[in-house]
């Protein structure tokens, strides 16, 4: 594993919301082409840690280094770093004032990273891969939940990121919509995208993940391959959690 390029290196990360300490010294390395799934009970800090990676949450202590750039350093131009990190939210957060294709082209055009022609051409290709080629001009309010999340993935990919962060991407979806979204993610993983995914979809994690990380009460209790985590977890709390989910 260690022959791969280190993409993300987090060390001893602390974060509090007021008196509530959410991250209590989290350290994690993610290498190129790796798919890391983060699991754990709600409130364990996995989403906060994910959002700290692109600095949507500022951390109190420790450091997070993405592609050799310290994102927790106030001197860093965070906007530059974020352009290389795609993010997909639980609630999609599509731009309500824009239609499908404009959602995708908004960032490159605003940041003048592409010409309009380039942006549209790339957006159309992405729409094909996420299965929304026929909805180019639709207002986002007319899309179903699954379509919205697939559009959100396409939007995140438009800027050509080399890391993708997924924050419970299927939690807000109706069960029949989940499969389509997971398929898109599965294809991404096959193409070698570096991905960090917060999810409760254990089947998907087992299939796609290179590593599964178990979060509990602000710390990582176990970091293993999916086979070990799901079949014979070393940590007691991880075992309890996985049993609960699988037998639910």
């Amino acid at each position, binding site marked *: 594993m260690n022959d791969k390029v280190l993409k993300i290196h987090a060390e001893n990360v602390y974060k509090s919301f007021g008196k509530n300490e959410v991250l209590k010294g989290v350290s994690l390395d993610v290498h190129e082409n790796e798919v890391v799934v983060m699991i754990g009970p709600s409130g364990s800090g996995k989403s906060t840690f994910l959002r700290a990676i692109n600095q*949507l949450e500022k951390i109190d202590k420790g450091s997070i280094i993405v592609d050799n750039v310290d994102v927790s350093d106030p001197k860093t131009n965070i906007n530059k770093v*974020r352009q290389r990190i795609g993010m997909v939210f639980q609630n999609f*957060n599509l731009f309500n004032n824009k239609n499908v294709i404009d959602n995708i082209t908004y960032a490159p055009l605003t940041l003048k990273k592409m010409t309009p022609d380039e942006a549209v051409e790339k957006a159309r290709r992405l729409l094909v891969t996420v299965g929304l080629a026929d909805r180019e001009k639709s207002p986002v309010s007319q899309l179903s939940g699954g379509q919205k999340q697939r559009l959100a993935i396409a939007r995140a990919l438009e800027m050509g990121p080399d890391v993708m962060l997924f924050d419970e991407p299927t939690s807000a979806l109706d069960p029949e919509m989940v499969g389509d979204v997971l398929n898109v993610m599965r294809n991404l993983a096959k193409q070698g995208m570096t991905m960090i995914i917060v999810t409760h979809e254990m089947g998907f994690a087992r299939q796609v993940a290179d590593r599964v990380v178990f979060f509990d009460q602000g710390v990582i209790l176990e970091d293993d391959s999916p086979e070990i985590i799901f079949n014979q977890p070393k940590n007691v709390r991880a075992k309890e959690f996985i049993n609960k989910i699988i037998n639910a």
Partner: protein
Amino acid sequence: MRKKYYFFITILTIIVGLIIPFSNNTNFGVAADEKSHYTITTDSTYPPFDFQKEKQKEYVGIDMDLLKEIAKIENFTYSVKPMSFNMAAQTVANGQADGIIAGMAITPEREKIYDVSTPYFKTGVVFAVAKNSKIKSYEDLKGKKVALKTGTAAANYALELQKKYNFDVTYFNDSNIMYNDVIEGNSVACFEDQPVMQYAIQTGLKLKIPDQKLGNAGSYGFFVKKGQNSQLLKKFNRGLKKLQDNGKYDQIVDRYLGSAKNSVTKEKKGNLPHYNIATDVTFPPFEIQAKNGKYTGIDMDILESISKSQGFTYTLKPMSFNSATQTVANGQNDGIISGLTVTDERRKVFDFSNTYFRSGFIWAVNKDAKIKNIKDLKNQTVALKTGTGSADYAKSIQKKYGFKIKYFNDSNTMYNDVVVGNSVACFEDEPVMRYAIKNGINLTIPKQTPANTGEYAFAVQKGKNAALLKAFNIGLKELKKSGKYDQIKAKYLGSKADTNKEVGNTKEDNSVWGLLSSNREMFLSGLGNTMLLTVFAILIASVWGLILGIMGVSENRFVRGIYSTIIYIFRGLPLLVLAFFIYIGLPNLTGVKISTFAAGLLTLVLNEGAYTGAFVKGGFDAVDPGQMEAARALGVPYNQAMRGIIMPQGLKIMIPSFINQFIITLKDTSIISAIGFVELTQTGQLLVARTQKGFAVYGIVALIYLIVITVLTWLSKFIEKRLGF
């Protein structure tokens, strides 16, 4: 059910509350004349007549002291309700208070609505300028701006001068603000009653009176609502007489004006002999006030013709009939022409001219009536007007002819009662009846001999003004000889040869429609100014509010601080205070003059802009924070994300707030009237001051606002749709 019941009661209470003050003839005041406690309104700031002394709650001044002494002598109690002059006058006019003493000049318009006491103070209008001003006379005012106080006699006088001397006027509701406007140099002069001005200057006001010439010399009186509180009026007159007799009156006046009251010189007379002629203008067809404020009528036309032919000039002093006779009898005025009947009693105090008119009581019937003889009135109902000589006469012959009697309070209603056939006849003074018929009342006068005939003549104080009397007699003779006299008579009373029915608009139509049509230009100009102010205020305040709102969501803490401070100040300040501060305070600070429009606009922009800024920030804040996160996660900087994602969505949220704010802005323009901008509300105030028809005028004003607001709302909704929201 209970809720409905309470709702119903509330509505009923509101309606009753609205109606009672405006119903003139309700009998709520049955016992009013026997009461001994009265509510007296006064102007809260009208020194030296009415004002609050420093650190004292009690109101003092010439008016207040007089009232106090009179109440003591006449043994009644009263409570004083200080308010703005307009309100004070209105409150009495609609019967909510018993009387008003507020340095209120006796004018013919007011005598239509009020009963007035004997004059208690002689006054006139002067103008004052800043201490260093070079203005010496009316001529110097040409093209300059002059400050007036709404609804005062001084303002009316200035408006008369305006035509001749061509100055601009600006209005205020308060003397102090008016004075300040002159001191600040926004206006070059203000018109004010002489004693008031004198007193203000004596107590340190930095103005001077360049010319002590008294304009429109007149008198102050104590007013009660017409036809009511006659006991109070009697008490006041009796008490005033006693005060004047025992010297207390002079003491009171001296207390406030010192010896300065004597420093006023009398109006200068020109080369021609000049006389002050008293008259009663509420006596058509002899004295009628035309819509333009000029006086016409048989008396007026005769006087004018004679003055021209005999080479003298005169100033007309319109007042109540009683005051007119009194002021001539005691020498304050030189002559009286007022449909004055020659009687032996009057001969004791007046010298009469040759008579110029013969009058008497007659009765009139419906045009289609078959009644030809007074005997036909037997068992029929006749209409009379309360308190008139003709009514007394009719009563005196009631038994003889066996008719029934019905009373009315005003002539018009009485005539109409006959026209519609409820009564068969009415009794009236012959010329008055003929004039009314000529002006379209559908009645006719059966052949009869006028009863109780009397002769009208011009009169002067006994033993004085012989030259004037002689001139009048010679002029009258010439007038009759030339046939001009008959022309004048025919003009007002009609004759068989006269086919010209209309005498011009001699009667001011005070109905809602009449007010609206005869003052259309005033209303339109007021509305125009309101619209102008509203449109500019809305546009600029919206832009300013957007800027503020954007500052409010800035990433920079310092910029957000500026936002908070501006909102805190301008949302916190009452609009009225802000208006005064900008119009009066700011020039003081900066030395830069500012027009009422600019000051009003700035006031509105600052105030409405602050409210707009607050809801703009609120609208931005209301956009789902996930939208900002998504944009930021893509690497889009805050400001660009704000512009591209948050603001378009926020603006949509705030559209209803914008429409709401537009309507508020329109309504708030009415507050700008306080600094003298003549918009719709101020127009209404000016009209009420002139016509005293508060209910009708404010009703019209309210309706106009509602119409404009409806249009504005509709327009906003239309634009909202067009923008595709």
